[in-house]
């Protein structure tokens, strides 16, 4: 018995798929970036259609200028945690700006979105008397937050308020705190939660609602405040979590709330206290991107226009799509092998998307996840649609021969 035996099954599967295509979908190196939607990979220019760059702000002039200035002014790194020497004026200012933008009283900035969920959940729910209820399709960081918390964790059926209601009704009288966790838009399929109904069910049972808008912040709602803005329940969410690494084109994460007790997390949340704070340049870039997001709706309009165009084209091509139209457009394939082959085919045709296979996907589905950006040009979209058209022809041919 060795430490490594447990990896054997996955390694065998991985290697056999790798041998067939000669490319590693989980180890792609963007050798040289050419802009928000293009990169050089192995000497070839590729259209990036598997990112989370929803508003396309990674090369925004204002964000780059702000990051440069912060770098010159405040140095390359903080070398310490928020809890110690790692809180600069920029960190505080960004917390205030996010709280003001979302209309909450309090906000905490973490080093990544992963740590924001991890830190909030682990600190809020504690065994033996608190219970966490999570949507079955929640991101790994929510699952990991539950594990770090150690509190009893119960899954409810994905996007199903009735299933949540049943599970909350079953809880015994000895349960003290109840925390319900779910997301706005889910990252893999791009499907959107019935946020209003879930918040209502949680509150009916005296539970707190934690909503992760990582993929929907900047994307949904009239002002880009997320699915809860669209559904008119922004004020009812107890804990709003988000990230800087998607619409805000930087790295870092946050938790916002109207509960003054959020401030207690600053000295009880281990993923906040025991890691270095985001670098000044990351904070400055996120702040500048937030200002752009507030001032300019045209990026969101462009994003949705692009999403509509790609979704309509894929529907016409007859692809099996995982969810209704949104900026994440996932094509379902028959299994791991076909998904691997299709991913490789798209790379050969100059388009990078995300390959996602079980257990990283719900319902044992193998998908190609495409995410649209406001920065995609018509030329980019043409390249994407042409590559998928060729893929659809290949798949039909294969099906005819089978």
């Amino acid at each position: 018995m060795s430490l490594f035996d447990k990896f054997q099954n996955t390694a065998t599967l991985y290697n056999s798929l790798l041998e067939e295509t000669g490319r590693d979908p989980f180890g792609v190196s963007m050798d040289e970036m050419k802009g928000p939607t293009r990169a050089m990979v192995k000497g070839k220019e590729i259209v990036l259609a598997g990112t989370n760059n929803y508003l396309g702000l990674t090369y925004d002039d204002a964000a780059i200028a702000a990051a440069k200035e912060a770098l010159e002014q405040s140095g390359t790194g903080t070398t310490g945690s928020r809890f110690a020497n790692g809180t600069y004026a920029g960190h505080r200012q960004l917390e205030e700006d996010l709280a003001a933008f979302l209309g909450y009283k309090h906000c905490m900035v973490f080093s990544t979105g992963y740590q924001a969920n991890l830190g909030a959940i682990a600190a809020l729910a504690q065994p033996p008397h608190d219970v966490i209820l999570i949507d079955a399709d929640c991101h790994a960081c929510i699952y990991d937050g539950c594990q770090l918390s150690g509190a009893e964790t119960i899954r409810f059926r994905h996007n199903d308020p009735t299933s949540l209601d049943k599970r909350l009704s079953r809880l015994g009288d000895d349960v003290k705190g109840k925390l319900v966790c779910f997301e706005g838009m889910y990252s893999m399929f791009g499907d959107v939660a019935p946020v209003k109904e879930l918040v209502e069910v949680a509150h009916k049972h005296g539970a707190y609602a934690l909503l992760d808008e990582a993929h929907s912040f900047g994307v949904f709602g009239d002002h880009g405040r997320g699915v809860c803005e669209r559904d008119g329940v922004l004020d009812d969410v107890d804990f709003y979590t988000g990230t800087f690494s998607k619409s805000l084109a930087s790295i870092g994460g946050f938790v916002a709330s109207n509960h003054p007790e959020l401030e207690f997390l600053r000295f009880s949340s281990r993923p906040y206290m025991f890691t270095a704070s985001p670098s000044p340049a990351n904070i400055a870039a996120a702040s500048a991107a937030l200002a752009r997001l507030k001032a300019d709706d045209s990026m969101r309009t462009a994003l949705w226009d692009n999403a509509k165009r790609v979704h309509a084209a894929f529907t016409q091509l007859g692809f099996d799509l995982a969810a209704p139209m949104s900026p994440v457009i996932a094509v379902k394939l028959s299994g791991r092998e076909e998904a691997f082959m299709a991913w490789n085919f798209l790379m050969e045709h100059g388009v990078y998307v995300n390959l996602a296979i079980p257990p990283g996907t719900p319902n044992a589905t193998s998908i190609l996840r495409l995410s649209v950006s406001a920065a995609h040009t018509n030329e980019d979209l043409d390249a994407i649609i042409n590559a998928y058209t060729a893929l659809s022809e290949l798949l039909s041919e294969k099906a005819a021969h089978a």
Partner: protein
Amino acid sequence: MSSIQEDDDLVFRKICSLIEPLNDKGAKLTRDTDLIADLEIDSVAVLDVVMDIEDNYDISIPVNTISEMKTIGELVDAIHAIKKEQS
């Protein structure tokens, strides 16, 4: 005693019927069958089977408990314990 055994058998059969669609290798299902090692069902699929069991028996089985269960027999025993506790 006999009624417990009968119930035990019913729960066992219910679980087997939920697992059978995932039993690609056609392995014989017994109390000692290990879901992940013997049937190669991935961890998320195990959670989904448990979700069906929860709705079938109107009980909640915490994720924390599931991670400790390896075999069908352990799952059967856990359901009995939780049914008793939550009824």
